């Protein structure tokens, strides 16, 4: 990496990376459109004849919009009501770890908590309910998608909250809020009128990603969502699994429809944004201090957070307990005895699956890290300015529904013969891992003190030496955090693993989802625990290693 050669390579990094993001999405969409549109778009006619279509589409829209609105509202309420207070750091500590919980594990945990034979029913039986046997109630897989919505909120709240927390310092939120408070505004009104517009502009893309994801999630919907009909995306995957070519065409047509639905929802959301902004500006003119809102809003935010985050945490604890449970009959609140036999029996299969998952996650993450570092170094060294368009391209794989372009990509993978290989699955994971690794690392990388580079350059150090000896070691903590984020994202991937793996590449997530329809809670518990453990270990290492490495460097501690 010296002289003109390294500059040439570096210059290629940003377009190469953006191409790696955009090309599979576009190729996948084209691959989906082809079967859907052949024979005069006959597949759409078949799709229209499916009686479940209106309800499936409505479920997709309803659960997606509801979960996005509620998790965004909660995020903003938590910040408005508690920013800068001790309660805030407590909420943060409760919620932040949930970010690394894979969606499937979260869904399985919630399913165990709220099912008729689940922990809540057990805790209340028989003394309150009088049930000696699980009641015949449709709590799980309820026809309105309420449990699916709850699951989505519990998973998206940590994501939006952390994105918002990262944006707060950039918009000088402390001083804005202090100014509003000295003018006599209540916390909620002061936040909404002075800070919200700037904050929202910073978290708009993550919000869009949450909406697109919520509308099209498959693994969570298979476990928690309604069944007759399921959400549109779930039905697409069911059709994809059929052998008949016609049903694959129907699936492709439905995937295009799903994509259009997401676009429509995003358009609707954009209109609501504009209306909301105008409303806030109009309200600011009237100078209503609204201090009375503060207490009820704070209470509501706290209760809602405790319910969502608490139920997820409890559900996961329940799964862990199942994995070591001996006899555990309804309505006992706790198992009669604990045993490691479940683990011992499952260990050979679990070990193989765990290794596959880890290898795929590590490959995708390391590739994402290398590309991200090359892009950021190119930006710093060649003094490129990142554009909004580049950022949107980076978000493309998170905005275009997976279920819309992965079927096309699977078709391409199948025709080139790479379908079913772990490497192909890792490549597919890279598309979703890279945006998160980039977003996680870009802030700390750009915030690095450029005077250090200038200082070293005046001593004759080359760009390569500055990068390897100064910048990279100083960024050890954020680099490891970005790796942990990448591993968590890869471990959680269901659809890319299922479709590109052709059902032959088994990871913890695909296995856990496959098991969910059966009743073996002990085995489900074991898979879910491993699903949790892998990202948790990665995050623990990201915290512990820099602390250990820099134990004799005071200024390096607290840098993350």
């Amino acid at each position, binding site marked *: 990496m010296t002289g003109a050669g390294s500059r040439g390579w570096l210059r290629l990094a940003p377009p190469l990376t953006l191409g790696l993001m955009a090309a599979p999405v576009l190729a996948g969409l084209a691959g989906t459109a082809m079967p859907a549109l052949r024979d005069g778009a006959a597949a759409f006619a078949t799709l229209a004849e499916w009686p479940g279509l209106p309800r499936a589409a409505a479920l997709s829209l309803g659960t997606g919009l509801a979960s996005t609105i509620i998790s965004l509202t909660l995020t903003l309420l938590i910040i408005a009501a508690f920013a800068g207070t001790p309660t805030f750091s407590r909420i943060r500590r409760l919620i932040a770890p949930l970010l690394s919980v894979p969606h499937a594990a979260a869904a399985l945990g919630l399913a165990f908590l709220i099912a008729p034979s689940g922990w809540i029913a057990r805790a209340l039986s028989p003394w309150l309910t009088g049930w000696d046997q699980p009641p015949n109630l449709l709590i799980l897989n309820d026809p309105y998608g309420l449990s699916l919505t709850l699951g989505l909120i519990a998973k998206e709240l940590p994501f939006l909250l952390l994105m918002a927390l990262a944006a707060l310092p950039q918009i000088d939120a402390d001083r804005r809020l202090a100014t509003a408070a000295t003018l006599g505004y209540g916390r909620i009104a002061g936040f909404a009128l002075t800070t919200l517009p700037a904050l929202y502009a910073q978290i708009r893309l993550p919000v869009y990603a949450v909406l697109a994801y919520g509308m099209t999630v498959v693994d969570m919907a298979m476990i928690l969502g309604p069944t007759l009909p399921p959400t549109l995306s779930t039905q697409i995957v069911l059709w994809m699994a059929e052998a008949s070519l016609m049903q694959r065409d129907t699936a492709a047509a439905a995937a295009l429809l799903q994509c259009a639905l997401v676009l429509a929802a995003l358009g609707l959301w954009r209109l609501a944004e504009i209306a909301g902004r105008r409303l806030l500006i109009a309200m600011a003119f009237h100078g209503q201090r609204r201090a009375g809102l503060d207490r009820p809003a704070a209470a509501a935010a706290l209760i809602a957070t405790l319910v969502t985050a608490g139920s997820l945490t409890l559900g996961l604890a329940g799964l862990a307990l199942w994995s070591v449970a001996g006899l555990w009959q309804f309505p006992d609140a706790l198992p009669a005895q604990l045993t490691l036999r479940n683990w011992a029996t499952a260990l050979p299969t679990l070990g193989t699956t765990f290794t596959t998952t880890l290898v795929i996650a590590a490959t995708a993450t390391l590739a994402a890290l290398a590309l991200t570092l090359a892009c950021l170094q190119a930006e710093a060294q060649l003094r490129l300015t990142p554009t909004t368009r580049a950022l949107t391209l980076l978000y493309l794989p998170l905005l275009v529904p997976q279920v819309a372009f992965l079927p096309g990509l699977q078709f391409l993978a199948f025709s080139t013969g790479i379908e079913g290989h772990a490497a192909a699955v890792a490549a597919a994971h890279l598309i979703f891992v890279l945006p998160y690794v980039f977003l996680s690392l870009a802030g700390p990388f750009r915030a690095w003190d450029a*005077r250090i580079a200038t*200082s070293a*350059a005046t001593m*004759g*150090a080359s760009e390569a030496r500055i990068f390897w000896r100064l910048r990279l*070691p100083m960024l050890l903590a954020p680099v490891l955090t970005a790796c942990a984020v990448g591993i968590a994202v890869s471990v959680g991937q269901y659809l890319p693993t299922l479709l590109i793996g052709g059902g032959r590449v088994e990871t913890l997530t695909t296995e856990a989802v496959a098991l969910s329809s059966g009743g073996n809670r002990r085995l489900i518990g074991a898979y879910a625990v491993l699903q949790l453990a892998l990202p948790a270990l990665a995050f623990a290492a990201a915290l512990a290693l820099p602390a250990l490495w820099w134990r004799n460097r*005071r*200024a390096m501690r607290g840098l993350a």
Partner: protein
Amino acid sequence: MTGTLDLQGVKITLGDRTLVDLTLAIPAGQIVTIMGPSGAGKSTALAAITGTLAPSFGMSGRILMNGKDISDLPTRARNIGLLFQDAVLFPHLSVGQNLAFALPAPIRGRAQRQARVDDALASAGLTGFAPRDPATLSGGQKARVALLRTLLAEPCALLLDEPFSRLDADLRAQIRSFVFDRAAQAGIPTLLVTHDIEDARAAAGPVVDTFGNPLPL
């Protein structure tokens, strides 16, 4: 190592505003001071000499070091040392590693490099400081290590970007004389940028504004 730092019609513009217009020759061993209020473009002039000017600025003119045109060289090839307001020690390296980072690569062998580092520390009254974490040093110690590090790279000229302004008043005079003595010892041209008239007086050389006009003290 001795030579003249020669600025020939160095003009820096931002949009249609001219920030700097300097023609200056600083002979070896002399300290020239550029004075002016903050925002006058003093640090911009230094960035032009080190080759770290932001792309939004326009620049014309030539910069010569010992007769050789360095205007188009990258920063690392210019051999111009720079001291900031803060010490900017690398926080992940020990004091000794910070100094060794600056030491030219042709000085080979672990023992020889370590000896050079130890000598430098000893010359500044910092014997035994090599394994220390830079974060544990006092302000004055950091300032001295920063200068040692800059000089160990054996620069042909030294630029000082308000290096005393963050120091406490009682420390300032002490570090000032330390820096000026070392610069004189090294026998290289030195360019000081400051808004403090005391710095300019202590430098005991010509004082100009960013357009090269002599300023009375």
